[in-house]
């Protein structure tokens, strides 16, 4: 089974880059975190918002769940524009055939997801406020 794992890290300085690990809860497994420099994330559920910048229609909220120093779930909630499940699927390149065809990556699937990553980033920032 291909386990979908994404590692996102926060790059200091020139904003916008994130690495995190997401475990597939369905499979009851969490991806091991490679020895990436990683500030400790406290367990809990955090909600981050993103205004949408130039076009307010990008406003959305992200709900991030942290367990045992890993991100176990991300949900895009309150999105004015699109079907949020579809967006999340696109963000993580979840396609129906991905596992059955053993696909490593997908050509053509794009998403102007800055708004979503921004709200996720804002959610992660809150984990340090504790």
């Amino acid at each position, binding site marked *: 089974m291909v386990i979908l*794992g*994404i*590692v*996102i*890290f926060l*790059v200091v300085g*020139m904003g*916008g*880059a*994130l*690495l*995190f690990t997401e475990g597939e809860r369905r499979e009851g497994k969490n991806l091991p975190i*490679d*020895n*990436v420099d990683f500030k400790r994330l406290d367990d809990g559920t955090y909600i981050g918002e993103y205004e949408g910048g130039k*076009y307010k*229609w990008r406003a959305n909220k992200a709900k991030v769940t942290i367990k045992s120093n890993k991100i176990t779930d991300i949900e895009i909630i309150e999105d004015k524009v699109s079907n949020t499940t*579809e967006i999340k*699927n*696109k*963000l993580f*390149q*979840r*396609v*129906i*055939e*991905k596992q059955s*065809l*053993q*696909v*490593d*990556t*997908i*050509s*053509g*699937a*794009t*998403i*102007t*997801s*800055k708004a979503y*990553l921004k709200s996720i980033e804002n959610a992660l920032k809150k984990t340090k406020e504790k």
Partner: protein
Amino acid sequence: MLKNVEAQSCYYGMDTVITSKAYGRYAKRALKAAAKEALRLEKLLSRFIPESDISRINRSAGLNWEQISDDTLEVLSQAGKLSNYSKGLLDITIAPLVDLWRAGKDTLEIPDDLRIKQLLPLVDHKGLELNFHGKAAILHKTGQAIDLGGIGKGYAGDKLLKLYKKYDISSAFVNIGGNVLTLGRKPDGSKWQVGISHPREENHLIGTVEAADKAVVTSGDYQRYFKDSQGKRQHHILDPSTGYPAESGLVSVTIVSDSSTAADGLSTVLFVAGKEQGIELLKNVPNTEAIFIDTDLVVHITAGLTDCFHAVRDIKVKVLN
């Protein structure tokens, strides 16, 4: 054992999501370096970053030369060559029209035809002059502007792969917003499996391509579009000669090639050209294969892909001679 250490990354850059997986002793370091390199390139090539090379060239249109970096010079040069080869089917001076259509996306109204016709003369790649010795560029007409949407990510991909090789990586893939590059094979010796998005069914693939040391780049009318007040799809790949989204009978073009810069540029060119003209254009481009998906969702592949393209069931595939 250390050779198979796996590292993955996923971050936002170049106005899209960049994901990558690499194997090797220095995989993690390579990915971090690549992330920095992607941001460095974005700062040079993005016309939305005020101090980028491209932004400065755009602001000085009709006025003066601007000094630029080696990378910017290289992208502009390659874009120019492709523009000449395709007789303008790719034209990076398309920015004024891109802006006009982006504004349309907000209001869901297509731009006024008169306005499009007013801006068309500004779309002229011959108006861009490069000075290779002095490392500078100038747009000759006031109001002209460059947008590297059709080739920039491709260029970045090639640079990132070069970086991986410096870190002794021989097995990896990079995916810059759908622009896929593969380096070598997977650790188990098999080729990378690259899914091709289904142009009309979200969260589905239309097929897969096996790749090793190849770039797989797709241009499609389903990536960034809006539906206007008539319900008609207005996509983002503009035909530089008409000023409107290209209507060539295709919904998606995938190029499989050694160079991701070439693949990115060509996927744009062939989408605008259509299948017949596209096949002609491919004849003089070595080591390059293509997948054309038409409006009936029939998949046409060049002969070289016969063994590496696999359609999902119920999809009709035709092999081009």
